[in-house]
């Protein structure tokens, strides 16, 4: 969803960092995206290239680090691995699972010149 807005968010973060840390060119961008975050990775790559064009990150390599998803099953009262949001608990099959990790969407680091 809205990967274009998210890519614009990434560019804003890059431009803020460029001002505060004094660099003029971004060679690569590392994003951390949770496995159950509502981001389509392919759409993100497409939008990233489009949004970065003409900016200090034009042509930058996009690296995406995938973070595993876990949820709290209210029935089992344990943390369980989940591969998609709103999935059933792998232990008991209940849908009463609240996502704990895997919804992250972060700019982790930049390689700059």
């Amino acid at each position, binding site marked *: *969803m*809205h990967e274009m*807005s*998210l890519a614009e*968010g*990434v560019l*804003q*973060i890059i431009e803020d*960092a460029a001002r505060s*840390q004094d*660099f003029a060119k971004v*060679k*690569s961008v*590392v*994003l*951390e995206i949770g496995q159950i975050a*509502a981001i389509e990775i392919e759409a993100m790559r497409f939008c990233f290239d489009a949004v970065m064009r003409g900016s200090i990150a034009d042509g930058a*390599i*996009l*690296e*995406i*680090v*995938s*973070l595993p998803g876990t949820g709290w099953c*209210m029935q089992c009262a344990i943390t369980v691995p989940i591969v998609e*949001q*709103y999935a059933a608990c792998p232990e008991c099959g209940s*849908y*009463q699972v*609240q996502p704990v990790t895997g919804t*992250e*969407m*972060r*700019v*982790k*680091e*930049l*390689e*700059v*010149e």
Partner: protein
Amino acid sequence: MCTTCGCGTGEVKIEGHDAHWHVHEDGTAHSHASDEHVSVSGTHYRPVNGAHQHAHDHDNSHTHEHLHFGLGAAHSHAPGMTQARIVQIERDILSKNNDYAAQNRMFFEDRSILALNLVSSPGSGKTSLLVRSIIDLNESVPLAVIEGDQQTINDAERIRATGAPAIQINTGKGCHLDAHMVGQALPKIPLPNQSILFIENVGNLVCPAAFDLGEACKVAILSVTEGEDKPLKYPDMFQAARLMLLNKCDLLPHLNFDVDLAEENARRVNPMIEIIRVSATTGEGIDEWLAWIECQRKAILVKQQGKSPIHQHSRTELNVRQTVA
């Protein structure tokens, strides 16, 4: 040296020997040149905390393993070889929006304003429901409305026809309201202390879920003409909402709509969600909806009164206002 994954640190680079092979934990093997790290499928790899095996086929042939923990990039670059450096950011992609949302939230909290973000698909009856709610509230509470649509000021005009102040935000190409747009609209509408601000988001069940506007909570509106499985098809929105209003319930006798199934689906994606069945046309359930709003307002007032001395001025102001009233 590979400036992406940090491998080959301190090694002598042999001319014509830029490429080397990687074997990842998942078994994928690929080669890459010194400045890239792309597998055959185009996927960029960077193990978070797994071991990362490198097989080098140069004279010093050896295999080694080391842990990256995501820090393997070119912190290790050799001075003089490249000007590249790594800047640690660790910022949420939505942090810019969240910063604006936090400002809006502070604005609301300082004034004990209840801000509700109404989200739904186009045509679920958000505006009709708002108009009905405003009429039934009958000026018992000061309120204002921010209307979000791609184009036209039609909805704001419908609200203003009830006598309530409203401001239209046209998002143009945008598919959702963001916190910055809402922040810009706030000074343009009258919002006295303890008032209610209804923010009617752009009709879209996808994007508005991710954008915090600084509201107290999101209210999702689902109409019974849409299908029981909408919460499963667009789970993010129903996950983000505290309340679901099931609208157009007056049409139920004419439809094959399983209300219980729709509610079960909503609870499947959000076990905590509250649900009220309403009809903007007949007024069914509107009392319960308005009572729910009143309950949220009370919660804000109680929270405000329990605040630290920094916020005492608001409290005093509140007491003075109550005394005057």
